[in-house]
């Protein structure tokens, strides 16, 4: 654990608009690029954060903090991520009294930004060296994509089914 890894999550806190997944690509760039975690460790962190209940960015902060600095690390990294939303409420409150913002216009603008961040996250999840040669994982991803869109399935169930599919493909030597 170091001040630098805390700053990564502090910074991410300011950038997480439109749901936690928008920032996963950014977290990867900072943590793997900064040498805090390897690409393999990060992909593992994503899997664990995803199968644990709670917002993904928050879970990722807790898990990475725990890996880097045990229990205190987990608490500090979680707090670092939440500092920005806690601080910004005061700033936003003061600002909205001075400049009356039109909420629907602001939301539309944020949606465009969300599209950019979410697409970047998808690219960085696909780009990781962890996936090289592992066509089984990409296949599971493609099936999960269609099931998620077409069937009204509980995402948690889908996550564990995919884990099961991973085990099956692994033992069949297709992973």
């Amino acid at each position, binding site marked *: 654990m170091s001040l630098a890894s805390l700053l990564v999550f502090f910074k991410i806190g300011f950038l997480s*608009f439109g*749901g936690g997944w928008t920032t996963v*690509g*950014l977290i990867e760039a*900072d943590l793997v690029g900064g040498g805090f975690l390897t690409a393999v460790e990060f*992909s593992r962190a994503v*899997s*664990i954060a995803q*199968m*644990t*209940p*709670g*917002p993904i960015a*928050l*879970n990722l902060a*807790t898990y990475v903090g725990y890996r880097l600095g045990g*229990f205190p690390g987990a*608490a500090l990294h*979680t707090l670092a*991520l*939440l500092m920005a*939303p806690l601080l*910004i*409420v005061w700033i936003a409150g003061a600002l909205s009294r001075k400049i009356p913002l*039109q*909420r*629907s*216009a*602001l*939301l539309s*603008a944020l*949606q*465009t*930004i*969300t*599209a*950019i*961040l*979410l697409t*970047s996250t998808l690219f960085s999840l696909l780009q990781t060296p962890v996936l090289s040669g592992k066509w*089984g994982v*990409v296949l*599971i*991803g*493609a099936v*999960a*994509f269609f099931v*998620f869109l077409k069937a009204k399935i509980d995402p948690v169930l*889908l*996550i*564990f089914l*995919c*884990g*099961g*599919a*991973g*085990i099956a493909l*692994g*033992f069949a030597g297709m*992973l």
Partner: protein
Amino acid sequence: MVPIFQVRLEKEKLLSEKAFLQSLGLAQCLPGPIAFNVSRLCGQQIAGGWGSFAATLGVVIPPFFSVILVSLVLNWLQQAVWLEPFLSGVYGAALGLVGGMVYKVYRSQKWPPWKLAIVGGGIAFLFLFPSWVLALILALLVTLYPVEKRGRTPR
């Protein structure tokens, strides 16, 4: 998580639908996990500052301990031969779910060419300069907000 909040809060007669949707709308404009912001704002409406504090703790503490619990269990299972393929499968699920979200985000909006150009440019920019993301977000907010606002104002 968020739809469950709404159902429970209405059922317990703690917050009306209108008040909830107001909090949700504001939560979406703020940075940070949406579930976190929604609970904080709802707690504020129900019981003021302490309500907000209690709601925040309520939404943060369970995931915090479940992550630690899962890490401990996985450490304990480290030798299991099925663990690595299981986690790979879960990673596949992440790919599928994020892909689904990307699809939904694009489906939910209209895409005039200028907006597509901005999104394409933004993705390329982030790919080349990932550390400039804050500048990119601020620049886009400052440019897009007036455009969206003008599109909405009746003339």
